[in-house]
């Protein structure tokens, strides 16, 4: 099925694309906050690259959504308030320390890699094509962040403690990546977007043994299962900074 989607599936897909794009643009913004502040020069360069990649991926998803809805990507990013954003809370949390940043990126990278592995078989051709494009770049992310998580977790007493603190904080939030929205069942049934509970199983089967061999303890906390319309107070603060230039700009502004 590569042709027309019915109105209901089209709406469901537009909603899902917004979720994908918002996750990447907000995570990319948080990563970009390290530019000029990372622990060492090499990592400053690396995190700036990761941020740029994530924002580039966000643009691809926003453009696919634009094809369905006519909504301009810049308008969508710079002129929506927090209540209209559909990212998970995990990506909007403040950047924290380096352990927190690398762990958040790692947990997201595994999710993204497994998702893309499935999306390349989507029955909606534009989605499958975009996934094939993005998947190649993710290979570098995954290697980088998994190396850091392992190295810090098995490093000094302090680096281990910081990584464990990061995991204690992030683990319940990560579950929200797999919370289905109202249209996701129909998308999965049509083979357009993968089933999120199967994706969650695959994600846990990857991250759990990895974290455990890095001598981290997976917390027993209650998972976050609220919908993507719910946000922490950190998102409006982030958006205030991210959107200010676009919002004060007038049509006459010359760069």
């Amino acid at each position: 099925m590569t042709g027309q989607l019915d109105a209901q599936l089209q709406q469901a897909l537009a909603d899902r694309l917004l979720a994908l794009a918002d996750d990447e643009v907000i995570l990319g913004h948080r990563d970009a906050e390290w530019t000029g502040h990372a622990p060492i020069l090499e990592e400053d360069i690396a995190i700036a690259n990761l941020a740029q990649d994530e924002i580039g991926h966000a643009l691809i998803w926003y453009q696919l959504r634009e094809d369905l809805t006519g909504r301009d990507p810049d308008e969508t990013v710079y002129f929506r308030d927090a209540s209209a954003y559909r990212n998970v809370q995990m990506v909007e949390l403040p950047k924290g320390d380096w352990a927190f940043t690398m762990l958040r990126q790692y947990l997201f990278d595994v999710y993204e890699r497994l998702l893309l592995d499935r999306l390349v078989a989507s029955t909606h051709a534009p989605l499958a094509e975009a996934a094939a494009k993005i998947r190649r770049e993710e290979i570098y992310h995954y290697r980088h962040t998994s190396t850091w998580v392992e190295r810090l977790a098995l490093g000094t007493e302090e680096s281990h403690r910081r990584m464990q603190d990061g995991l204690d904080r992030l683990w319940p939030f990560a579950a929200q990546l797999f919370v289905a929205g109202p249209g996701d069942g129909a998308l999965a049934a049509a083979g357009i977007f993968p089933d999120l509970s199967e994706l969650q199983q695959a994600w846990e089967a990857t991250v759990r043994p990895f974290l455990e061999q890095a001598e981290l303890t997976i917390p027993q906390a209650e998972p976050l299962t609220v919908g993507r319309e719910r946000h922490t107070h950190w998102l409006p603060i982030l958006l205030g900074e991210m959107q200010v230039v676009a919002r004060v700009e007038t049509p006459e502004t010359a760069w």
Partner: protein
Amino acid sequence: MSQMPSQEQIWRALQEVMDPEIPVLSLVDLGIIREVKVEGQEVTVVMTPTFSGCPALEAMRQEVEEKLQELGVPRPRVEVVLDPPWSSDQISPEGRRKLEAFGLAPPPVHRGDPEIMLNPVVPCPYCGSRRTRVTNTFGSTLCRAIYYCDACQQAFEQFKPL
């Protein structure tokens, strides 16, 4: 009705449009021009991005349009496609030579093998030694990694395999 350039003329002209981040490499060398279509007064160039977050794409698109206008195409079209995804394997042999002369190690041909992508042997573009090691898989642009040559003790950049 003005005379439209031939496909061949357009391909030749696109050889003069350089990648803004690697000014010795043309868009044709880079392998991102997929198709040139001339249908009556309609001229369309189909291109594909290298890395999807590449900020140079918009600049390259404009330069292609300007180049076509120089050739007398009144309203050139540039279409961007993602499928099939670009790979660094598509950089031409000529492009690889130009990269090396520029001091940027060309990417290994990997045919999708992640082992070759992630752990390539990268000869030094200055002295040719294979005693080199990666110091950062991320570099000054999305498409570059940073290496060090233990033979001539020079840091150098590699065009990253994708």
